[in-house]
């Protein structure tokens, strides 16, 4: 008896299940795009309309130039000049101001004399991330201002240097797209295979398959391939939407990105099969798949919180989260344009994870029914 027609017959059935459940299929195809739009438009960590006030003891050409720079930056909303630094505090407290820039007295004289010019930047850091971001914007403008002054006069000391590479416009959507691809792939792969396999267990059809000449690996492959195709369709649609709607830059190799996505999808699929093999009901499988993937993939992957700012035990834990490595790969390819020579360790780690999960999944399915 040849294995091929049996596997084909089984896969044909899986595709039919998938195509017949129109509602689920529509959700699976459209949800990722909806998620991308939501993330892209609503969840932004870059900030617009930062209210800034400049404190200038004397009004002169240099301070006027700075005010103009803030007004024209597009990020800032310039408030009327504040005569004294003491009034900044109450404005900040009352939430009427985001950033205050305090220029020293005798600014014009100091600049002419070539003395060090100290500029104080006060920002509302009630949300530390926002505060840091606003401060960064302000420092960038101050630096430009100093550069311009220096070009005109010479001998102006530049004290702040800040370079933002790879994502110069600080568009957060660029950072979210890789994480979003990870999230979507996880959902389609782990969750859907876990549910579809455990449904067969619950209904009793799995027994019939196990009694048949189908080998456990054939059952797994037949279950996995249709969902792999669906997951890849999702990757392509999200990338297209990111490119067309948000103009996310695409520096690296598309084929490497698709290959890495396929590898990551296979990790998720193997995880889903393993969950279905271990759990005894659809509900348990669904909860395990959600808890086992969504939580670590959002919290411990670097998608929302940078891995480097986590406490050490959590940093160690992120090593076993596949999405952590995948997000590094996607960010590397899309934003930095790096290739295999840089990303091979991450790809290797994902391959090892796949091998381990697949072995466990086949072994657990092979035990047949205890």
């Amino acid at each position, binding site marked *: 008896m040849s294995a091929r027609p*049996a596997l*084909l017959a089984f896969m044909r059935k899986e595709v039919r299940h998938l195509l017949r459940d129109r509602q689920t299929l529509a959700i699976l195809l459209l949800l990722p795009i909806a998620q991308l739009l939501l993330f892209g438009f609503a969840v932004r960590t870059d900030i617009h309309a930062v209210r800034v006030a400049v404190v200038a003891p004397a009004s002169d050409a240099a301070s006027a130039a700075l005010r103009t720079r803030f007004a024209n930056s597009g990020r800032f909303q310039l408030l009327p000049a504040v005569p004294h630094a003491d009034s900044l505090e109450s404005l900040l407290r009352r939430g009427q101001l985001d950033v205050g820039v305090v220029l020293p007295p005798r600014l014009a004289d100091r600049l002419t004399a070539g003395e060090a010019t100290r500029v104080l930047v006060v920002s509302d850091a009630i949300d530390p991330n926002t505060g840091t971001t606003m401060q960064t914007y302000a420092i960038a403008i101050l630096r430009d201002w100093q550069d311009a002054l220096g070009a005109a006069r010479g001998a102006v000391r530049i004290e702040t240097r800040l370079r933002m590479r790879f994502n110069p416009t600080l568009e957060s959507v660029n950072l979210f797209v890789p994480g979003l691809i990870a999230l979507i792939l996880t959902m389609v792969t782990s969750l859907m295979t876990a549910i579809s396999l455990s449904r067969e267990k619950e209904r*009793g059809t799995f027994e019939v398959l196990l009694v*048949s000449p189908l080998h456990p690996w054939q059952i797994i492959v037949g279950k996995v391939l249709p969902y792999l195709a669906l997951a890849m369709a999702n990757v392509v649609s999200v990338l297209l939407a990111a490119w067309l709607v948000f103009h996310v830059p695409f520096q690296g190799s598309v084929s490497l990105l698709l290959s890495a996505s396929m590898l990551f999808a296979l990790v998720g699929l193997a995880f889903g099969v393993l969950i279905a093999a271990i759990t005894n009901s659809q509900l348990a499988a669904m909860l395990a798949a959600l808890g086992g993937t969504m939580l670590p993939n959002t919290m411990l992957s670097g998608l929302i919180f940078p891995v480097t700012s986590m406490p050490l035990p959590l940093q160690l834990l992120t090593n076993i989260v596949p999405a952590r490595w995948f997000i590094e790969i996607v960010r590397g390819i899309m934003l930095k344009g790096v290739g295999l020579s840089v990303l091979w360790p991450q790809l290797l780690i994902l391959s090892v994870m796949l091998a381990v999960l697949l072995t466990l999944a086949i072994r657990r399915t092979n035990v047949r*029914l205890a």
Partner: protein
Amino acid sequence: MNTPAIVARNLTRRFGTFTAVDHISFEVQSGEVFGFLGANGAGKTTAIRMLTGLLAPSEGEATVAGYDIRTAADRVRERIGYMSQRFSLYDDLTVRENIRLYGGIYGLQDDEIARRSEVMLGELEFTPPVTAMVRALPLGWKQKLAFSVALLHQPAVVFLDEPTGGVDPITRRQFWELIYRAAAKGTTVFVTTHYLDEAEYCDRLSIMVDGKVAALGTPAALKAEFSVASLDDVFVTLARGTASSGERSP
């Protein structure tokens, strides 16, 4: 045809310290309808799982369709059919799609599947369209169809695990006619049931009590052995025997 369809020798399965099946031995001849009876928890399901390769025996041996269930499980799987009390067709596929799936799993080519399913549906006098979703069929049709699909690859032995649970008496009768028809063609039928009137239809019966085969023989022989008028009484006598030994709560 001389080798028995099923041979079990001291077949045993333990779960931890609990012995679910305790050294059972029996033979089933080709073309026989063999009833496998027992109260819930007597070990029927465990035994049937070992014979179908779903569970490895802890001790003892068995052959099904001439092949050892331990060493030639793949061969056994190709030669048996299986239908469980839980419905084994896919609700969201049509009648034809289900038939093609099971035919395909057992390695039949498409034209062969088409030929056999035509014969099969004809014999069933199957009236609903083959493009109907299985979920839309009445329960009786579903059960009869599931049985016929389990026979599509012409297995030597078919295992039926409480196949008539929840169906009406008329459908049960029709179902047994299908079983006889299959047996007449040489298929060995191994069937578990809760209905003792159904047990009367079997060529031979075994009754399991506490993991052991407590009685084995034709319905008439069993009634004579226990000097009672019905299989019901045979069953009750055996069950009472267990209760008095104090192992089971009344």
